[in-house]
């Protein structure tokens, strides 16, 4: 196959990064915040001001930034927050990779792959509040603003990328699914490059209320910055977040030929489903462990080759315990150091998998495993090596980035820094 290495495998590298996330709106700011292990959760003013008596009014929000350099006022009127965040992160990632080189590729060979758990649900919620009683007064662009595939299609339109453009909904695993599927499409020869990532903008009264109703969210409302504490003894739920992260993936031989900067390689991907419960993970975690094992095997590696794990780590008891069990199974009790970005970022739903893959690759390349924010001690310490208190220095090596979503969705990536 074109672009295949001597092993017969087409290799896929990461050449561009972009984020619009609570941890920061550029990659180095987000990385620094992660290393500082400082939570970004705050009381969300717009949730309080809505006066809907929400049990939870804290969230991790994207810091305000100038949108005008990215999106004209005319286009912005037609975008919702999810599409806006994803498009801005994608523009950063494409510029980082080299826009001219990407648009020089045959347009049919460049695709866009985006994961989102909520899509335009939050926007439709707002439309329902504002126009529900008089639907015929609603804005003309309501459908294109709220459809789940808008973020991906806006990126395709912006650059004229005419290859496969797909949007994946695997709940909290959506961003990971999108990156994994993008890498596969390049491996299989369908695409030469892909803009891949995840996004959600779920910090609305109805969506936050819905998650609070199922007791998935932390109630530590008086101490928002201590609420998200993955794997900690005193965790009591996750903190809702918003944001987008985007990676540009390219066929390795083409990226090398054009002299692109290479952040690392997507070496492994696997996905499966617990088929157990619509929200809770299977506590036995056999399927999640199998997903990790398959991703590591897909990379041609053994569990012992993994330098660290970027856990899904939501800060819910059910997730963290099941994930620790899965890691324990997959690594046969020899867990590599494990961290969890959500202590800092909260849970970006479809955005999280992409943000964690991106930051995990940087950590893998720089030989650093950040401490989990807020976590002081873990009841799962006998199962996994949770990095607590201070960051850990490790040898540069592959990272396993896990995502698990409602519905029993499991998706794992292995990302390997350049040799």
């Amino acid at each position, binding site marked *: 196959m074109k672009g295949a290495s001597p092993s017969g495998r087409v290799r896929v590298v990461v050449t561009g990064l972009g984020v619009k996330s609570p941890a920061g709106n550029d990659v180095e700011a987000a990385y620094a915040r992660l290393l500082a292990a400082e939570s970004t959760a705050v009381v969300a003013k*717009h949730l309080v001001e809505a006066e809907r008596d929400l049990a939870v009014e804290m969230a991790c929000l994207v810091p305000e930034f100038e949108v005008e350099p990215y999106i*004209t006022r005319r286009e912005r009127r037609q975008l*919702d927050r999810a599409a806006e965040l994803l498009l801005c992160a994608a523009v950063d990632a494409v510029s980082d990779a080299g826009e001219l080189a990407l648009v020089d590729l045959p347009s049919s060979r460049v695709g866009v792959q985006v994961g989102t758990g909520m899509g335009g649900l939050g926007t439709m919620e707002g439309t329902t509040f504002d126009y529900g009683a008089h639907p015929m*007064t609603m804005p003309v662009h309501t459908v294109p603003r709220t459809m789940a595939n808008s973020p991906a299609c806006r990126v395709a339109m912006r650059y004229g990328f005419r290859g496969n453009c797909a949007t994946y909904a695997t709940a909290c695993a959506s961003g990971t699914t999108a990156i994994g599927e993008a890498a596969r499409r390049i491996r299989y020869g369908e695409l030469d490059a892909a803009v891949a990532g995840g996004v959600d903008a779920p910090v609305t009264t109805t969506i936050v209320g819905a998650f609070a109703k199922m007791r998935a969210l932390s109630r530590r409302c008086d101490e928002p910055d201590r609420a998200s504490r993955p794997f900690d003894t005193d965790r009591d739920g996750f903190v809702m977040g918003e944001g987008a992260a985007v990676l540009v993936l390219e066929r390795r031989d083409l990226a090398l030929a054009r002299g692109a900067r290479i952040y690392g390689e997507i070496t492994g991907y696997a996905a499966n489903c617990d088929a157990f419960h619509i929200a809770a993970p299977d506590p036995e975690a056999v399927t999640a462990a199998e997903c990790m094992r398959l991703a590591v095997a897909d990379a041609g590696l053994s569990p012992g080759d993994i330098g660290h794990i970027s856990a899904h780590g939501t800060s819910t008891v059910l997730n963290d315990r099941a994930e620790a069990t899965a890691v324990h199974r997959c690594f046969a009790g020899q867990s590599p150091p494990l961290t969890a970005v959500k202590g800092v970022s909260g849970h970006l739903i479809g955005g999280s998998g992409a943000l964690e893959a991106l930051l995990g690759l940087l950590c893998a390349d720089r030989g650093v495993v950040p401490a989990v924010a807020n976590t002081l001690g873990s009841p799962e310490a006998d199962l996994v090596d949770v990095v607590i208190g201070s960051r850990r220095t490790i040898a540069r090596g592959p990272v396993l980035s896990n995502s698990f979503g409602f519905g029993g969705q499991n998706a794992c990536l292995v990302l390997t820094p350049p040799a």
Partner: protein
Amino acid sequence: MDLSTPLDLSTPLDPGGTETATEPALSRAELSLTVRTAVSDVLGTEVGDIDEATDLGNDFGIDSLELMDVGSRLENALRVKIPVSDLLEARTVGDAVDLLARRMGRAA
């Protein structure tokens, strides 16, 4: 809830839909300003960037949804039904003002 949408003209003046005829008639200048405001809202320009000679197709490459958006804003603001044919027929902003004036039964 949606923080990204600026205020617009689409709030109906008469949400119950019970038409009343007590509105004072708009002058030609007022009507023109209403149209130019709707157009500038949709195209993300300043009102001053739009004049009656502005050709929405040639000058701005307006697409059909944006045109519908302009029409919808005008329907809400002026409480008048605007047929799609009118939207398509008006080449310039001035044409649209003329058509609207006729629809509203007032001499331009």
